[in-house]
């Protein structure tokens, strides 16, 4: 691990000022950052510890049915908040399907948004990676890439975003509240993460020094609570990143779909909102035929970036299955066993 200066500011403006310097990074729990530093992948010269900043640790249930989640709320605390799981069951399910209990106890929701990709070539400093070192090339293109992106990738980067949590956040129109040197702004989660394009080293819309303060889930999105699921397939039952995952929410009215929410995980460098598929579902009866059409629409632009064509068909099937589960209704016990296909009905 490289040497760094450690600063623990006591106010948000102080933190923003300290983190605006080149080479600075925010530290919350450090579950991702310390790992990256041990591997020499991240080498910040200054850590700005925001872990004790006041006012960022509350889960606020808003009068309109929405929820405001402070950036320092721990993943486990949010997932097990009964009021939260009632309003946003698919988000709780996604949280509990990520990482391990130890990591969820420490990791913060703000940090979750800023997780770096798990692409093995990004993590191996001996490999070429445009994200780690702009212009270096991408060893994933000709390498082991069966788990890489099938949507939104570029010649320069085929990595995926690893978060489970962000998938339902994208589906349910979450807003990211950030503070910067010039004030506060709101960023829709759907726009927060950037596709690689020509600049894979730019991962989010955050400017240097900008700090995530909170996430907001709008009250309107709680209307999906009765029919909302997160489904994740991975290469072992637990404690692994998604090969493909999906968040699905339905609002049913008179036996038809009044409104739908859909997003995919593990397929792109950002949580992938499937708006065309949502539109295709409106007015349909919630059956397999309708779900298949929606899945076709969601993956229409998909193409393999390597040995991963199977992920396109897998993503279609996961969408159909997530929609089928959502239509059947959110399970009574929430959080359910986290999002494993082996635990459906448990």
């Amino acid at each position: 691990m490289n040497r760094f200066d450690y600063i623990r500011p006591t106010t948000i403006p102080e933190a923003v000022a300290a983190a605006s310097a080149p080479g600075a990074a925010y530290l919350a729990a450090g579950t991702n950052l310390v790992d990256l530093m041990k591997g020499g992948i991240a080498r910040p010269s200054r850590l700005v510890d925001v872990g004790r900043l006041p006012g960022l640790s509350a889960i606020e249930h808003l009068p309109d049915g929405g929820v405001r989640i402070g950036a320092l709320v721990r993943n486990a605390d949010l997932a097990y908040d009964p009021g939260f799981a009632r309003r946003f069951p698919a988000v709780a399910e996604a949280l509990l399907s990520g990482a391990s209990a130890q990591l969820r106890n420490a990791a913060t929701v703000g940090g979750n948004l800023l997780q770096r990709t798990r692409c093995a070539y990004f993590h191996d400093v001996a490999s070429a990676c445009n994200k780690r070192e702009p212009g270096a090339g991408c060893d994933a293109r000709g390498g082991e890439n069966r788990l890489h992106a099938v949507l939104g990738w570029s010649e320069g980067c085929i990595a995926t975003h690893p978060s489970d949590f962000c998938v339902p956040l994208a589906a349910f129109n979450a807003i990211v509240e950030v503070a910067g040197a010039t004030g506060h702004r709101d960023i829709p989660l759907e726009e927060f993460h950037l596709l690689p394009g020509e600049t894979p080293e730019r991962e989010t819309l955050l400017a240097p020094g900008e700090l995530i303060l909170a996430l907001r889930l709008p009250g309107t999105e709680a209307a999906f609570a009765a029919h909302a699921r997160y489904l994740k397939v991975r290469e072992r039952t637990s404690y692994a990143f998604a090969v493909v995952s999906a968040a699905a929410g339905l609002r049913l009215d008179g036996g038809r779909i009044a409104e739908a929410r859909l997003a995919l995980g593990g397929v792109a460098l950002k949580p992938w909102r499937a708006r065309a598929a949502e539109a295709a579902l409106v007015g349909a009866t919630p059956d397999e035929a309708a779900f298949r059409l929606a899945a076709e629409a969601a993956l229409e632009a998909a193409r393999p970036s390597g040995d991963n064509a199977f992920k396109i068909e897998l993503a279609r099937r996961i969408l159909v299955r997530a929609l089928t589960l959502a239509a059947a209704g959110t399970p009574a016990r929430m959080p359910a066993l986290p999002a494993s296909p082996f635990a459906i009905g448990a």
Partner: protein
Amino acid sequence: MNLSITLTVNGRERMLALPDPRVTLLDLLRDRLDLTGTKKGCDRGHCGACTILVDGRRTNSCLALAISHDGADILTIEGVAHGDTLDPVQAAFIAHDGFQCGYCTPGQIMSAIGLIREGQAGTDPERVREGMSGNLCRCGAYAGITEAVLEAQRALDAAEQEQAA
């Protein structure tokens, strides 16, 4: 910044000067406090061998910078037994052969104590397995570990009911 912290480790308050902000809780426990029960496996948050309780919650000590944990209350495997009396989780691991080589065992036991405190697994083996998935055992003692956690949960539930009665 003054690089010194205060930790309560297994009930005892310790003032510790840090040579460097890079020190993790794991290295601090092992190298400075000679509490080598907490194991260094992968040192990257993947294996769970370094699991301790921080303010009552199970955590990977290898990814926790000590400097950011000033004031924390730490429980390690060395602080689990009550004198010569084993904690019910320790006793259950012995009764059910919840280990072979033993290297992952302190982390498994700390994780099991954390899981039981979280109160989410109950008596469902599937939930116990899911709840313990952050602790790898290369000997493959998982069946015994699951049995041990279930038995410890039952023993603690029974003790609680007895107290309530």
